[in-house]
């Protein structure tokens, strides 16, 4: 069963008929069963579902980190599944940003270099501009004072903010986040979600996988996956601090309805 979700405005991402089968198991495991998903420019979409429903698999299949078994993915008008390794790398670099549950910073680079890496990679001939942009990002996310620290010297929240800065460093149009607060306590989670909400407010499209209703309440739209299919969705509109509590309640009752 294919689910089609209408999106407001021009789609930043348009995935059609996405299936994903893992052939490493016997019998092969079909995790995604034909998903259609569109994300509008500047839209913040949260993907929810029980463990094993295929949330992360969907995120990686539509983001070019992994290739779907079937289906097509269009990002900014470029069809991803037919791209070569090098072309795909360029799309990941210039168009996308990634945030994971763990910060996944490179341990042999300091915080500043971790953020600088994609910026320099995207524009190697303009190192000065890259440095300037990175400094701006670090200041904006209040981690400029730890730029010359090792990854072992900073808190989990600072690490995750550094990961957000890294995702933003090459000025992508869409960010994919896989449970970005999964490894953080509630205070740090709020910090990170504030940062992501701010990014989205600036026009960056966001697709986020989460288990947390509170985090999902920040999204414009929440879709629910079960057995590799999109079974429901809820549109919430843009988040404001004032409406936060109501949105969390709405999400809670909607999730309860899904049996979450």
């Amino acid at each position, binding site marked *: 069963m294919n689910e089609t979700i209408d999106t407001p405005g021009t789609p930043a991402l348009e995935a059609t008929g996405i299936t994903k089968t893992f052939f490493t198991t016997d019998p092969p495991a079909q995790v995604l069963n034909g998903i259609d998903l569109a994300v509008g420019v500047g839209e913040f979409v949260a993907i929810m579902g029980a463990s094993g429903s295929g949330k992360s698999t969907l995120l990686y299949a539509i983001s070019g980190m992994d290739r779907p078994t079937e289906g097509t993915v269009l990002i900014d008008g470029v069809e991803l599944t037919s791209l070569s390794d090098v072309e795909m790398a360029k799309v990941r670099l210039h168009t996308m940003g990634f945030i994971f549950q763990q910060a996944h910073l490179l341990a042999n680079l300091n915080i500043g270099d971790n953020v600088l890496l994609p910026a320099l*990679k995207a524009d190697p001939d303009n190192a000065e501009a890259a440095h300037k942009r990175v400094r701006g990002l670090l200041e904006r996310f209040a981690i400029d004072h730890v730029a010359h620290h090792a990854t072992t010297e900073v808190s989990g929240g600072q690490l995750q903010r550094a990961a957000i800065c890294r995702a933003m460093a090459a000025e992508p149009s869409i960010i994919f986040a896989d449970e970005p607060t999964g490894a953080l306590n509630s205070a740090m989670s709020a910090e990170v979600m504030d940062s992501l909400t701010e990014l989205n407010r600036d026009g960056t499209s966001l697709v986020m996988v989460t288990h947390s209703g509170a985090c999902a309440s920040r999204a414009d739209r929440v879709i629910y996956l079960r057995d590799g299919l999109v079974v429901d969705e809820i549109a919430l509109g843009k988040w404001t601090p004032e409406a936060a509590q109501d949105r969390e309640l709405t999400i809670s009752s909607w999730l309860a309805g899904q049996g979450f």
Partner: protein
Amino acid sequence: MGRISGIDRTYARNDLVRNKVVNIALGVVLVLSAFLMATGAMVTERLTGSVGELFASAKPPHYLQMHKGDYDTAALERFAAEHPEIQSWFVEEMVGIDGSQLRWERPGSAEEGDFSSSLIDNLFVTQSPDFDLLLAEDGTAPRPDAGQVWVPVAYEQEFDLQRGDELQLPLGEGHLSLTIEGFVRDAQMASSLSSATRFVISEADFAALEESGTGEPEVIVEYRLEPDADTSAFQRAYERDDSLPRNGQAVTYTMIRLINIFSDGLVAGALIFVSALLILIALFNLRFVIRGSLEDDVREIGALKALGIPDREISALYLNRYRWMTLAACVVGGLLALGATSLLTRSISTNYATAGTGVWRFVVPLAALALVYLVVVGSCRGILRRIRKIEVVAALVQGSVLDQKQTRKRALRQAKRARRSQLKGGTRLNARLAAADLRSERGQWVLVPIVFALAAIVMTIPLNLLSTFSSPKFVTYLGAPQADLRTDVQWSPELDSVYQGVLAAMRADDRISDVRPFANEVYEIEGEEGWEALRVQVGSHEAGDIEFVSGGSPEAGEIAVSVLNADKYDLSVGDTVTLRDGDRSSPHRVSGTYADVTSGGYTAKMQGEPAAGAASYVIYADTADGETPATVAAEYDESHPGSSTLPMAEYVSQTLGYVTSAFKNAAIISFVFALGVALLVCTLFLKLRLTRDRKKMAILYAVGFSSREIGRQVLAKTVCCALVGTAVGVVLTATVGERLVGALLAATGLGLDSISFLSNPFLVYLLYPLCLVAAGCLGAVVLVRRLSRADKSGWLRED
């Protein structure tokens, strides 16, 4: 071990499945180490056994003295009567015939030839009475009938002779035709370093030869001494007695044995040396693999510790795995060694004897394998002591093998490094990332340069030795100048006229330049116990002709002596020595000492005009540009009977041919093993490294690096480490290795002191090492290619 004895099998099985490539690579390196160690030990055992067997049956003399010309039999008898330590003695009469005058033909076929290409002296003798026997293949001492001849086994191989072939010797105006009845082994002259070889004929044929005046008569006075006799004292006593024949070379039993063991001993030594380096490589790998396993399994180890399992038992889980692997490697390596040994010792069995199957045949290889096992397992035990330091909380919570102190130290190191940016400019990001990785993980990556350095040594030392022994320039270590041609005049009845004929022809020949004649004259030198014979090469010795260990070429009034003579007469540069020539005696200053393995290594050189009446002559000459030495040499060899002219390359190949051909096998084995080990270890290392770096590679992939770029970073790190290691290995070979080999060769007592490698630097120091790097990188390329198909998102989700 009792409580978890069932688990260790499960652990071992799981590890085998999980790390198939790594375990196979490790297993193969261990098999190669065990194989070479066992082969080296077995070759040594067979060599000493075969030489011992031949010595036991052939009973070579404990002391022998060569002599040309008349001698006083009564003096010899008196000397024997005065020395009760003499068990037995006799004078062996010999007739030397030039190889070009010895023709062979195969009846019933058109096959025929002569021995002119052989440089060594062909001596015809009758079978010795009761010692210094020439033995047939079955160990018996043949006593041929008239018309029969027994030929040296070396000629059987060199000229492909068969039983039943006819051998024709010059006999006065006609010739003597003999049938080859078989082939004999010669304990005294078996080695290729020996300058002569003996044919056994009947008493009747020998008498006919002597009567006809064919060839050059020579004698060897041979003594067999009581077991507890002091050979050196005996030699001194002999040389002190002026009435005894002694214008030729004197040789002792020890020297005969040493020369016999030298060539194959060198092979066995090389194999054991290479094996020791391979074991070292295996140990470094084991350290890397075991440490990696502990890091991978740290949570399980923490859990076992938390359950109260003693460290010793946890350690046994790992140790047993490597015990079995090493044991299996020793068994497989030992079995492979059986096959290789019979191939490598084929020439030993032919030239010497097939030693009986004694207890040492089993004990020696088993002891070698036991040594490999104990060293490897002992080292594993040492590495596994790390388990003791693992703290339960750090293991379970942080998944760290480090204790608090180590963790703090590492954090401090990381913090210090973080103060500096690793990226700086925007260009060459991949290179900068690779360099940053190498800096921060040097403890891991150091395995690659270490292994490549050792593999480079494994490869280049045997290759250097091989090329040194095969180099035409090696003659400079044989006491001869480097030249294109060498003419020997020694077995002609008209020695002086043949010599003058060749010399005149060469000097008049436009194709030949720089003709340098030398006469081998016998002088007397004052030794500890009186006047002794000294073979001196007289001629125009120019600076740079030969390699001097100390000092330089002799000028007028000077003499240069071989290392062995310098030792014997306790001479060093600047000393004055008195030489006697008939009634005249004159002082000579020692100008230098040089290495020499020919003529037993006891030679000397003096400046002067080669005079008529010398014992033999040598002429060195160069060929003009565009002339082929082999062609010119063949022409002179043909047109000047009684002399032997060879291209110098051929001379070296004949003198050291046996050493070189035996060593070639060892060099090839080392070359192939070095390549194989480089490939295996590189694969093993990268397989583990790539598994551990999955997350890092997935991060780079997510950030916008392509699989190809990530692969290139891995390749760059590998090539960089391999190049550095190989360069270090090559430099070590050229410096320490050269000195080490020089010291080992000097220790053999053959007079090969201060040897320098003579090799083609392009091949040995560039092309072959690059092959090593290429072999290592081949494994890297195969592994890196797999990266593009890997599921990077899955790597990010791994715990």
